[in-house]
């Protein structure tokens, strides 16, 4: 079986459809396509052996192919509030940087995430964060505050967490009990755009920490693979459900590590999605290999793909 690796293609609009066709022909998947003025960014999965071929085809088009470890993941960037104290810097800069590494990021601004005594997390915030592959918590400057309020902010969160804060990594590790999956120290509340080399180095460190955490999850998934690879299911939905192409969202179907988020109303489309045929003969439907659930994010649909061990089906 060919291994698909996450890559980002950056190039011009001119003849980019050739690259898209090539990725398709090679058996790869395009998870996200961004057209910005004359530039195109394709987040995709391609067979490892064919990366050089894509590079060769892209050469005359001045396109470049880089490995992007976070393609196909949806990450929540959690900010203690939407006040000027925490935004736009830190949280937005983190979200933007993770996006460059291929992730689809969503900002979650908590209603009451500030103050060490009064901080809390409501059920909607908890459920929304739990719908992601990983949560990055952008916390503040004082060790004391992080120590006191973090247990509240993580209550009920089941996805891996990476914490950022001003204290150094060792202090964060000491302050947070039980431990989380990743720590990046020296970030905290920053009131200017991240531009100095040491600040950008911190963001690189964060990307490494996030990809390390997600790699561990991927390894676990490899032992009990999903019944269908999420980008493959995404291609099936896009092909069979024409309504998806009419949505104006930047990512009408968002790929996650273990599922998909479809930005169509649950009440109207859940049954249609459940009955979509996954195999050519129509013997297997989406409903057989995945749970189609209502998302807490607006009225979207969340698809959680079941593992092979549960369905005994591998598409």
């Amino acid at each position: 079986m060919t291994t698909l690796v996450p890559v980002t293609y950056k190039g011009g609009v001119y003849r980019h459809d050739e690259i898209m066709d090539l990725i398709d022909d090679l058996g790869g998947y395009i998870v996200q396509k961004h057209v910005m003025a004359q530039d195109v960014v394709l987040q995709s999965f391609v067979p490892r052996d064919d990366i050089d071929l894509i590079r060769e085809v892209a050469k005359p088009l001045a396109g470049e192919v880089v490995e992007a470890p976070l393609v196909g993941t949806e990450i929540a960037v959690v900010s203690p509030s939407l006040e000027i104290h925490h935004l736009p810097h830190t949280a937005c800069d983190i979200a933007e940087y993770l996006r460059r590494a291929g992730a689809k990021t969503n900002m979650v601004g908590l209603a009451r995430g500030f103050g060490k005594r009064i901080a809390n997390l409501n059920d909607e915030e908890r459920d929304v964060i739990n719908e992601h592959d990983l949560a990055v918590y952008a916390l503040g400057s004082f060790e004391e505050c992080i120590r006191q309020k973090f247990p509240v902010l993580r209550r009920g969160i089941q996805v891996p967490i990476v914490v950022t804060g001003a204290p150094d990594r060792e202090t964060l590790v000491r302050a947070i009990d039980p431990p989380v999956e990743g720590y990046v120290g020296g970030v905290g509340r920053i009131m200017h755009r991240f531009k100095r080399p040491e600040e950008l180095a911190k963001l690189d460190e964060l990307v490494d920490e996030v990809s390390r955490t997600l790699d561990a999850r991927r390894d676990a998934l490899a032992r009990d693979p999903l019944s269908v690879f999420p980008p493959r299911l995404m291609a099936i939905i896009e092909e069979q459900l024409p309504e998806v192409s009419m949505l104006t969202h930047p990512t009408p179907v968002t790929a996650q590590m273990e599922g998909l988020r479809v930005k169509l109303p649950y009440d109207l489309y859940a049954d249609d999605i459940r009955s979509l045929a996954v195999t050519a003969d129509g013997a297997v439907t989406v409903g057989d290999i995945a749970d189609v659930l209502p998302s807490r994010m607006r009225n979207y649909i969340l698809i959680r793909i079941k593992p092979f061990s549960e369905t005994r089906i591998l598409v």
Partner: protein
Amino acid sequence: MPPLNYFVVESPDAVGREAYERIAGDVLQDLDLIKVIDRLHIYVDPKVPIFVAAGLLRHMPRAIRVSNFANVNIGEKMIVLDIGDETYLAPLLRQLWARYGKENVDQPDRFTVVLPAGVAGEEELEQMVVADPSETLYKDVIYALQYIAPEGFKVRRQYIKDEKFYYVASEDTLPGDIVEAMVRPIFAKMGVTL
């Protein structure tokens, strides 16, 4: 950031102290208050929890009068105001309308305002206060301190008068003697009595 004459951030948490020094610097720079503030002392302790900022303003801008931006020419039939700087034209017109009525205030072009002769004397017009920039400056300084202080510190007490200002905030109720207990000693460190 060009240094204030005195800028100290104190905190029992060394990392937090450094972070707040940068936060304060960035905020003052963003809001263009570095030239306005002369001295600033911040004390922040998350364990109490308390945030105190105290300082001095460099000089308060004076009230803007008509003579600061316009020439008053008294003629036989009319009084002509020759506007040099349009910044305060809108508040000036609003005041003239209120005082002399819209029908008596004519503005033939951008830089000229005409009043009928005899409604006001030259001295009276020249000394008329049009705007007081210190009012908005007070708001800006308090806003900046609110912005610097940790967000959870919602309970606050603020003061700004005669170039001295302080801002005390906490997550819990502030004790009644907080000014005597914490703010006065900070002013003393800057060599000022509150």
